[in-house]
């Protein structure tokens, strides 16, 4: 079935598979968290790769602009992507 939509499909971090690349469209969460993520390069429009899920600590590892940053699974929900 084909579906057409004018808006790109928004996907929260937990819908991304390990190894998948996606474009960041929104950074949410409380201010200092959001600010630091943006300073590390998580800006809307940036290509981000979900490197792996670290199940032992319940974290998600992203690669953004060449650096590897891990966030808690729940807190990573503040990041929304489109592919």
């Amino acid at each position, binding site marked *: 079935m084909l579906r057409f939509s004018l808006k790109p499909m928004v996907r929260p971090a937990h819908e991304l598979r390990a190894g998948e690349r996606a474009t960041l469209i929104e950074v949410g*969460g*409380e*201010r*200092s*968290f*959001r*600010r*630091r*993520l*943006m*300073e*590390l*390069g998580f*800006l*809307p429009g940036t290509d981000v790769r979900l*490197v*792996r899920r*670290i*199940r*032992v*600590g*319940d*974290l998600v*590892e992203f690669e953004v*602009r*060449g*650096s*590897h*940053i*891990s*966030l*808690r699974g729940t*807190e990573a929900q503040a990041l929304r992507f489109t592919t």
Partner: protein
Amino acid sequence: MSNSAVTTAKALVAIAGNPNTGKTTLFNRLTGTHHKVGNYPGITVERHHGELALPSSRTVELVDVPGSYSLSARSREEELAIQSIAGLGGSPVPDVVVVVVDVTQLARNLYLVLQVLELDVPTIVALNMCDLLESRGLELDDAALAAELGVPVVRVSALHDAGFEPLTRAIEQVLDGRTSARPGPRWRPGTPALQADVAALSALVPAAWRPASQAGAPGGSRAEALALWALLSIDEHDELDDVPAELRRAALERRSAAAAGGRQIDAEVISGRYGWIDARIARFVRQKRDATSFSERLDGVVLNPWLGFPLFLLAMGIVFQSLFSWADPLIQLIEGGLGWLGSTVGSWLPAGLVQDFVENALVAGVGSVLVFLPQILLLFLFIGIMEDSGYMARVVCLMDRLMRALGLGGRAFVPMLSGYACAVPAILATRTMERQRDRLLTMMVIPLMSCSARLPVYGLIIGALFPAAALWGFLPVQGLLMIAMYLFSTLTALIAAFVLSKTLFRAPRVPLIQELPPYRMPHWPSVLRMMWLRSRSFLESAGTVILVCSIVLWGLLTFPKSDELAQRRATETAAIEGSSLADDAKSEALSALDAELSAAELRHSLAGRLGHAVEPALEPLGFDWKIGIGLVGAFAAREVFVSTMGVVYGAGREADEQSLTLRSQIKKETYADGRPVYTPLVGLSLMIFFALACQCMSTLAAVYRETKNWRWPVFLFTYMTVLAWVASFVVYQGGMLLGFG
């Protein structure tokens, strides 16, 4: 140049950069062994500085700025970074800032460079880790970078000791004014609304933040930069000191007005800077080919759901095993050396009060500190290796879920691990945490971790009161008890963190943002230097406090002198010596007399009276007044207990936990009715007391220095000591009820 008026003053060069860029390694290489550690003005965060000789052989002062991703502070250390780069909060304004840049993560590193350029301080960019470009499939155009940034750009290799000459030459040229290195901001607020915000706030930037050297800066760019900093850093929850109330209020107003108008100032500014970078980055670096890094493959194992945790436990097992087996020969060496020193110095002095003081207060006091050094050095060596190799960042991730459940984050794990060595450097290590509440909570539970000072106490009690035999033929009772004490203390610390986070320190969680830097071989000089600096904070703090306490304790144990007892000692000694006994019998009689009189002198001393005074409080725990003396002494520092018990039982002050005389004295000790004082139950109660009580002046002093508030050390002391008393009471009385007495 700010110091040009004072020609004798050395120019100040600050080395800044993102964490994990090899900044500290470069600092170490440049300064060689000529570095000192001081404190930042006003607070006790270490400020590493050293001297660097420039090509013209003049020297400049080099300061190692804490690593930070940005100048908007998220942790205490990052707050220091802005202060030292911008010359705020009492820090001098640097004459040159060298920003160390990791070329494999150029975009993010350039973000900090842009912020430094906005502050309008002379800047040099040092490109580090260039040797990794090839393996990452990257190609770098230094000339394009230098042209766009407008500052000198030099390649260095901190690891391979290369490129220092071009860097020092660049520093010299900037200092001489031959290169300006102050090109002004690369990015400026673009929208009229943001420009109005910045203009309004720059008018409120206090004059003290604008040193005379910056007066002629183009367009007052420094004030604008600080206005941007205020807009991005100030909010209702920040923990910034020294922000003028007017500026704070205005920043908050501007920000909420912008939000009401649908503008996000943070995003505007940060995207603006990254916009500048993104428009040029393709000219600076080219990706020649894709390469999955070695680190990413290794992380597949280290962070593996099945292997990650067992590997971590294995690493910890090796650390603790070596801590006990490798440190032992060194400890014995130190003990031997001190014993020799004590008796040698003692033999130069005439017998009497002075000799007693030097041998038993000074040498023994210093000695009780020094014996811990091998274990502390080793633990900090391992922590340094874990940090420098990049493994510690993975440990933070592995431990985060557990630590989160206890109301702390993965970041709290590193200071708590240091607590196994010594609480003092562990408390200093809380500075890397982001929020004051988390720092406080961590400080409140670190002293529950079984530090190395508890080891001699456990050793004495376990050795004296528990069988050396194996249980059911294969379980070594003594070894198991030692492990049990470590597990007990770790569990208690974790439970205490949980309880405190649910009561006194209720707060929402701070989100975790943890970089996983690439793995690399530890740089040994840096690891060794960190090991030494951390151990030194133990030596300085513990050294002074413990020395003073052993002197006081010596006084308590020695005074007041009893004339009657002194006379008895003189007459009866003379009587024995003049008797017709054989030499063996004589010396036996003499030592029996000495033990009897020493015990009597002890009862007469201030310490003896103190022991009697506290006895009623200790009786329900199974302790008598002599143990009371040991406990009074141990409140200065735990390990003092062993040497005090040596004096109390007349086994001599040189007694240590291995001393057979002290162990057998303890076993022989009885009450007036013939019951033994020490049973295994009493030993257990005593060990529980030592595991929980806050018997360490240096820890309390360190907590005070970090919090600048007497409430926290008082709270720490009270809750731990009450906990210790209650737990020992339950163990002893419960054990008696169950018939283990």
